[in-house]
């Protein structure tokens, strides 16, 4: 008996095997337990907070007629680029909500710019009665930093109209980025322009901080 006890303490391998078996069973049970998360739960300290550092602005208008001679008589389209400067953010997508005056401009369209390579168009809706462009696009690839054109708005002024008008970003406009669960949009500035002269003249509106 004394020999057996001595052997048991002298050779700890069986104890170690038993301990490992128990630990394995516990770990397997934990792994198999159903995972039923529901509400968003705070995960404090897991990742540092992302600072909103991106801005959106609209470029001045430029004419996109194909043939200048023909455009004298034909319909003339204008274009404004939605430009982004991401600052330190790695941007993955943009949702634009832009208001315009449907009484003054028509044939409004929005197209992806070249900031995102091969973007996914998530939403495209142009409410021609209310005058609201809703457009969302994003990338399946890594988030991008820098500046560029995320989208381009084209339109045609209504015949015979005159007056000051604008493209105005609405508050629903959002910029999303890697590791951020809220918008990283810091400021946005729309575009004011006047219609009625031979060529619309434009000026950037004051940036609106968020």
């Amino acid at each position, binding site marked *: 008996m004394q020999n057996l006890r001595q052997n048991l303490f002298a050779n700890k391998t069986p104890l170690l095997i038993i301990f490992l078996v128990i630990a394995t069973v516990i770990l397997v049970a934990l792994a198999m337990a159903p*995972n039923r998360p529901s509400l968003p739960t*705070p995960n404090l300290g*897991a990742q540092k907070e992302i600072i909103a550092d991106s801005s959106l602005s609209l470029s001045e208008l430029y004419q*996109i007629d194909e043939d200048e001679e023909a455009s004298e008589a034909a319909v003339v389209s204008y274009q404004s680029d939605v430009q982004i400067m991401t600052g330190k953010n790695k941007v993955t997508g943009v949702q634009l909500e832009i208001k315009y005056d449907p009484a003054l401009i028509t044939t409004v369209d929005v197209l992806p710019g070249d900031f995102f390579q*091969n973007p996914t168009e998530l939403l495209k809706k142009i409410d021609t009665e209310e005058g609201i462009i809703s457009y969302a696009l994003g990338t399946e690839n890594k988030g991008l930093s820098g500046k560029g054109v995320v989208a381009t708005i084209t339109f045609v002024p209504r015949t015979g109209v005159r007056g000051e008008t604008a493209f105005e970003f609405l508050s629903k406009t959002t910029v999303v980025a890697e590791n951020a669960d809220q918008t990283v949009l810091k400021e946005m500035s729309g575009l004011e322009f006047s219609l009625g002269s031979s060529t619309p003249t434009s000026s950037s509106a004051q940036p609106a901080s968020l």
Partner: protein
Amino acid sequence: MPSFYYSWRSSNTVMNLFKKLLLLSLLFSLGAYIIPAIAHAAGHEIAGTVFIDSNSNGTRETGEDLKNNVKIEKWRNPAQGNNVKDDLGNNNYETMDTGTKGLTNGRYRFYNLPSGNKYKIKANVPTGFTCTTGNSCQRTGINLNGNKTYSFGIKQNTDGDGDGDGQCKDDKRVKPTVKAQPVGAVQLTGDLNGDYYEKVFTFKVSNKNPKNAKCGKRDYQLQAVPAVASWGSNPPSFEFRSPMVDGKVLDVKPGNPAEQLKLFVKVFKTTPAGTYNFSVRAQDTEDSESTRMSDNLQFRFVVPQGDNNDTCTDNSGCSAPSPICKLDTGACVECLEDTDCAEDGKVCNTNNICVDEDDGGGSADKIKVRLGLDGIGTTGSLQEPSCKFTTNPPEDKERTLTLKISSSTTEPLTLNDTAQYEDYTRASTDACPPATKMDKGKFIAEFDLPAGFASKSYNVDVSSNDSPNLHQTKENFAINTSGTILDVDLPAGDIDKNSDPELRIDINDWNILRTCQKKSGSPASCAVGTTTYKTDLDDDGKTDADDMTLFIQEFFYRNR
């Protein structure tokens, strides 16, 4: 000592040499950085690339190469001829070839351009190529108030025999096929909600050209054609939507059909009742040979008489079970007054439906809620109830429902109860999508109403603990003594549970979903920022492409 001295001297010489080299390299680096910066700081630039746009969609994508040696021209009006100065004393006309002047990879760049308007830029499309970015690869009226980027796409003319003349002289093309998914004609019925309702017909297009066929592009023009010459006044309308562009499906490779293509048919309030037959067909966009147009894929739908799709002016425009014309709305209804209800003991309620007399003034003790959650069980998605989402049993088979019942004359009542999921296994013979009014594949709860609860019409709001902000309100909903079933479908996609109604399903939710989908193991939930979110919208235990597809459909639908 001498030895140490020698060593020190030697080390000092090496140090000095190293310092000189360091200084030189610093100066060189600074020079390389500053000199071009100074040279280009005076003005703006127009730059970009020329790329091979293999799928003709106007956008450069992975695998699409850049093209060197394409001549790019730059003008500025007023054009007074080439090689003259403009009114600012600058050359108004310049050219360069892509990938030259120190640039690589199909790039071009014009530096030091003064601000101003009426700039023009043009890529000269090489022989045998076609411009895919519109305007003959020319941009005019450029207002240069900063640096501008214009990229041009070109595609090699694929006339097969390689001479780029647009005519193939070795033609082995065969006609494409258009088939329905699922196979068979589709019966279209529906209730009007607004001025029109819309149904989707899904089909696929296959490129049947042999792989050794030299001719034949991969782009097909689609047509939807009524079976008769005219469908009369206010006919249904057709629309091929994305991914189709201008009714074309692009880049269909042999052996790799374009699937899940969708034709949207819009039926208007004023569309006459009747049976409508039409067909869908496809043809190579650059093949005018009629024998190589696909066979017609037949579809059929029915706009029923008196199903509220038709406006009525008198009772002759309505039929059972809604034989009465309600003149103020032009809708066919069951009754306007009690005498319109043929059966004994029935009365006409406020919804113009015949109900048991008790339901008009008695009390109700229960209400059953049949909750469909988009993407789970027998509930499809908001935009497209399809079988893609109809077979997924949820991981969590319970939901907590909240019912808020109110009317203009009663105090608001809030009830909570647990809804249990009814299992559903889809048999191959089941309809697709399954019938909507059944318990299977839905969450069922039966709420006890307080004693003496008056039987009448209420506004009833239903929400689930999954997405409390995505609730639904049924207005003027009749709660009867004889047992009432309330059918509600709730959307999915409010991952961050933003309480702002404008942001319930938005790009923030997409970004969180995208993040979790990319995590290894496709977890059902993951941490983004400082919060953990559940992103498994169809509740199958993982965040995958199905969740992304479901989200995009919900996002699109909620915002359209």
